[in-house]
């Protein structure tokens, strides 16, 4: 690549995502630990919310999203811990490419990781709580996708900025959860609407549109603040 020719935005995103996936594929550390953590979460909550063999109302929806939020925090922390060890995040920031593209690249990596977790956890919740999570696969899939994007969009920015901070492990959830409360509410309520005996589709769609709106606003904000916030 000649020095004056920068890779395009999409090419940069792909390069960063591919790098992350390649590293992950070699060790599989984050995906295995995150997945096991999510499964353990579901089990712990199952002991709390299943009485006499029957789950409490709406428990499945809540547990699914709590498992995603918790394991998402873990995955974000681990992903950026990797960038911290050899100060590679600084190296990335020094590269002559669009800074927002670096953010999107990291975000896509986190999203793929969480998608892998959801592929396992969602059927597990459906199985253990006898919840018809696959009765409306398209709406359920869209809720999961938009919810995860919203959560990871804020999480990726915060985790990237926390790389240089002290006590980053505990600060990430402290900062992330209050901001992503709308995502959790919308995800849980939307999923619960789908899980009712007579699925309430208009309500589920309403929560879905709220998630889409949240994603747009927070990804825009993140792209806007990533560069000035990451430069020292």
């Amino acid at each position, binding site marked *: 690549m000649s020095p004056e020719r920068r890779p395009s935005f999409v090419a940069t995103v792909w390069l960063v995502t591919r790098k992350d996936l390649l590293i992950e594929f070699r060790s599989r550390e984050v995906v295995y630990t995150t997945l096991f953590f999510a499964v353990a979460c579901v089990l712990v909550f199952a002991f709390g919310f299943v009485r006499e063999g029957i789950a409490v109302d709406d428990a499945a929806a809540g547990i699914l999203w709590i498992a995603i939020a918790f394991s998402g925090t873990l995955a974000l922390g681990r992903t950026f811990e990797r960038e911290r060890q050899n100060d590679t995040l600084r190296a990335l920031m020094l590269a002559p490419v669009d800074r927002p593209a670096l953010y999107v690249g990291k975000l896509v990596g986190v999203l793929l990781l969480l998608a892998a977790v959801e592929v396992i956890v969602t059927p597990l919740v459906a199985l253990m709580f006898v919840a018809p999570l696959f009765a409306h696969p398209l709406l359920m899939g869209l809720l999961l996708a938009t919810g995860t994007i919203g959560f990871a969009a804020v999480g990726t920015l*915060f985790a990237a900025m926390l790389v240089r901070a002290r006590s980053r492990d505990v600060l990430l959830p402290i900062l992330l959860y209050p*901001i992503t*409360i709308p995502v959790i509410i919308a995800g849980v309520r939307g999923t619960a609407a789908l899980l009712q005996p007579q699925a309430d589709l208009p309500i589920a769609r309403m929560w879905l549109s*709220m998630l889409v709106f949240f994603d747009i606003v927070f990804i825009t904000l993140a792209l806007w603040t990533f560069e000035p*916030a990451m430069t020292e």
Partner: protein
Amino acid sequence: MTKLFTPLLIVTAALFAYAPFAIQNAPYESTMGLVQKIFYFHVPAWIAMFLAAMVCGIAGAIVIFAGRKDADRVAQAAAELAVVFGLMGLITGPLWGRKAWGVWWQWDARLTSALVMWLVFVAYLLLRKYGGAGSEKLSAVLALFGMANVPFVYWSVNVWRTVHPKTSVVMTLEPSMGIPFLLCSLAFVGLFAVLLAARVRLETVRGSVDELYLSLED
């Protein structure tokens, strides 16, 4: 600012000294009775809290995009005040709610969004305290995101029915209630301004002491 500080301090102190008498003399609200009088401090505390939140968010945006140190001091001072005034609102609210609703807490739109907003500023302070060097920018981003988050939290909880009294009622108050309310609101806004100015000054002085110390070491 330093010129205005003393008169503002005196006016605020006078307002707070007079406030109990004004509240005492205000008539009882017909359905709620005595417990309604907590509104004279509850609502102004939230007004001051949201003022502090707005100041913090705007100062945060200036920190991110202009990188100014003085804006950072304002943001930090405002965040601390947001937590303090928010705590006042969160304590006085349930005291009234227990009497009026029969419960200390409702997962109502206004209550939940106020609590989340307050949590964001607590997180802000935790970040400032334990984040170490370089946490100024992240905290500024947090303040900005916190502001952007308010409509989402409000809307998402509002889908469940809201039980909190509407704030539009303030505009329709009788003068016998409206004037004490206005006095209390002014007192709280004045208190916010006084504390903000004092806190920013403390940080500025602390900053210059640090600079002196560093130049002495060189």
